[in-house]
């Protein structure tokens, strides 16, 4: 997993700033910030395709389970990413 690799290298750098630390911060921030936003969005799109928020989907009729399950997985991935991110960010 590339993200893990980045984090592993990242633990070696502390206290002072150098270019490699900055690059790693940018990479981590891109993966965590933009990446998780994208995953969340896929989840939202899944909910929409599953019939949530449409007239047809109200009350359960016209709902499509597959995208909704996918959405659930996406949201779980986001939660897991946040948890992992916090734990990594705080261990030195």
């Amino acid at each position, binding site marked *: 997993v590339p993200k893990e690799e980045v984090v592993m290298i990242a633990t070696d750098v502390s206290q002072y700033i150098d270019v490699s630390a900055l690059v790693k911060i940018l990479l981590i921030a891109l993966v965590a910030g*933009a990446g998780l936003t994208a995953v969340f969005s896929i989840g*939202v799109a899944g909910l929409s395709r599953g019939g949530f*928020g449409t007239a047809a989907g109200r009350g359960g009729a016209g709902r499509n389970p597959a995208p909704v399950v996918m959405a659930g997985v996406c949201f779980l991935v986001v939660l897991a990413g946040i948890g992992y991110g916090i734990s990594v960010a705080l261990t030195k």
Partner: protein
Amino acid sequence: MVVVTGLAFDFTNGFHDSANAVATSIATGALKPRVAVAMSSVLNLVGAFLSLSVAATIASGIVNQSSVTLAVVFAGLAGGIAWNITTWYLGMPSSSSHALIGGVVGAMLVHAGGSAVIWSGVAGKVFIPAIFAPLFALAVAALGTVLAYRITHRSSDVIKKRSFRVGQIGSAAMVSLAHGTNDAQKTMGILTLALIANKTIAPTASTPDWVIVLCAVSMGLGTYLGGWRIIRTLGRGLIEIETPQGFAAEASSAAVILASTHFGIPLSTTQVCGGSVVGAGVGRRQPVRWSIFRRMAFTWFVTLPAAALVGAGAFYGQNGIGGSAGVVVLFIVLAAFCATVFGLSRRSAVNPDNVNDEWPDKKSETPAVSVAA
């Protein structure tokens, strides 16, 4: 008295930094203003307890610890407070960390000369992050916004709005937590420094719990009572923000801050959040009020030197009068200055009820609304 002043600084810090954390959630309506601020305060506290690596860096890496006296800390805090409150009046989110570091550095220069300041620390811990943090945040938020809009392009608006609102509660919480792990610790670091200078605690001691709690509480109060001006600029001033953008911006801020915390690099939440919001605007190819951003960026650049100047002046005056009389005089001058600015601010008060009003698109100098309090 130094502790009281330190808490007063945290109070003004609450105007700026913790306000940023929740600004976009309030602007998009994901959270009610008061709920948002309360949540932010609690999570700040949690974040501060989770990680103290940044507090340690600040306390040790910027000035020579053995030269620190209570008078230096006091004058430095005075410089930081004066600058914070001035920028707050103007509705400009400026970095309280830079204000604080500037104030302490300024006071230190007068007290012990240039050799007592660790310039490499100032460069590495303040200037370099100050340039990169907003740019990183901007890039990440822009990418996140592009992706969010692309992916949900054909989704129903109802579900989009609802989901991203829920998401924003989570992302705002993350920013607050991240702020607690990074930015909020600077005052704690300075107070620790003061306690060490006062020989209350040993030089090797870590930040006492009561310092953490008091700092977090006064910061929360500051946000609650005065953060609205900054929330308004950031939430409504820069761009007209939608929920997916708010989510992307907050995710970006949280990621940048947490990643930096991991490296023990203190950065300004204010600058990160400002960068993220602009990035969210750029990502949607939306008009950004660049004039406001330019003013914000200008504020960021002058914060450190300006606070240093005030800190140096404060130390000079305090030293000139001498002894505890000097401290008391400085305290009174500072209090009078704050009271004056507060008085002025009442003319254009921003509060939970008007924080989200339409942004007036005229060339007004202060981003204030015409509602008198």
